[in-house]
């Protein structure tokens, strides 16, 4: 099992953070050794999906808009 600190079985993994200034850092973008890009965000609940007329199937996360800027600038 992988440990939180990245030891043990964890392969090479990069966390990317865009920091506009001391107070404003975006959520993280993770680049994993299996080639995936994983974003940090909040899960969108069923209630939210119904309210916002979003599809009910599949996993969804909402991300801070600044994260989109980070993706554009960093990936």
């Amino acid at each position, binding site marked *: 099992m992988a440990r939180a*600190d*990245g*030891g043990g079985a964890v*392969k090479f993994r*990069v966390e990317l*953070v865009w*920091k506009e200034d001391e107070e404003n*850092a975006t959520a993280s973008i993770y*680049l994993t050794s299996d080639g995936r890009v994983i974003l940090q965000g909040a899960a969108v609940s069923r209630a939210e999906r119904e309210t916002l007329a979003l599809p009910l199937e599949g996993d969804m996360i909402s991300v801070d808009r600044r994260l989109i800027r980070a993706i554009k600038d960093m990936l």
Partner: protein
Amino acid sequence: MFLRNYWYVAASASEVGRKPLARIILGEPVVFFRTEDGAPVAFEDRCVHRHLPLSMGKLVGDRLQCHYHGLQYDRSGQCVRIPGQDRIPPNAKVKAYPVVERYGWLWIWMGDPALADPAKITDFHWLDDANWGAKSSYLYVNANWQLIVDNLLDLTHLAFVHETTIGNSALAEHATVKVTRAPNNVVVTRWIIDQPAPPTFVKVGGFTSNVDRWQIIDFAPPAFLRLDVGATPTGTGAPQGRRVGGITMRNLNAITPETEKTSHYFWGQAHDFDVKNAVLTEKIFEQIQTAFYEDVAVFTAQQRSLDLIPDPPQLDINADTGVIQARRILARLHEEEQAALHATAAE
């Protein structure tokens, strides 16, 4: 590609004295010397008369005299004497560069002199701070400056290039790295928690149990890389910012382009333990120097490859994340600088 409106390290302070020193910086020939009161001076290393490098001349008081026909220049680069001629043309002047002495290095501003604010000099205080033991040095590298920046932002090469000195395979295979990008700065951070200390750390830090170890690389344009490495006994709070009972070292790098294919590489190593122990300072310095020689062999070979096939396609891997961010910052700053230059020229 060079960025001009930045302070660069041009020489170690001890290199510049009453004998003119020639050095090419960002493709421009520069001569350095000190006036009789010890103030450093830098100007274009080319006589306005017949282009002989002024560094071949000699100092007459505070004037630099050309070796060829004896024209003399004052500290501002103004020609103030032409043998056998009373009238000195007003354009008999070479370009003078702002210089500042700090941290045992001589810094030069190659861009617009009006923008040369010494407050913008990158902090390398560890090199002359009484709370640190430190030694600095210089390497001449037959490679483009950005290859050196790339190398210092990449931790995984330690496993291969420095296999027998400071690296091990875990650095490449089982690492979690955080890359924090700010508009003009990249920080690459890696923590290794609750692991045995490497032999060199045991020797100088006296660790008897596992440690929390960090490697933090701070990149500031155009080519300053300040590495913060160290360890504390595990669980004592270093990841939260409380460094107690451990050791910290700073590996400090300032790269100055000479040409597009050659670089001046100023570097130093500082430590916060047993700071007055000069033998220890030397020993730590030598260990790092051995590793740096291994890097220089890599840069030189890379440059040879690039000379044969310029701008070949290249593959980026996850480990290049910090490198890519730094390159993007440099490309953007260069674009901005060029745009400002063109705007000024168009006025």
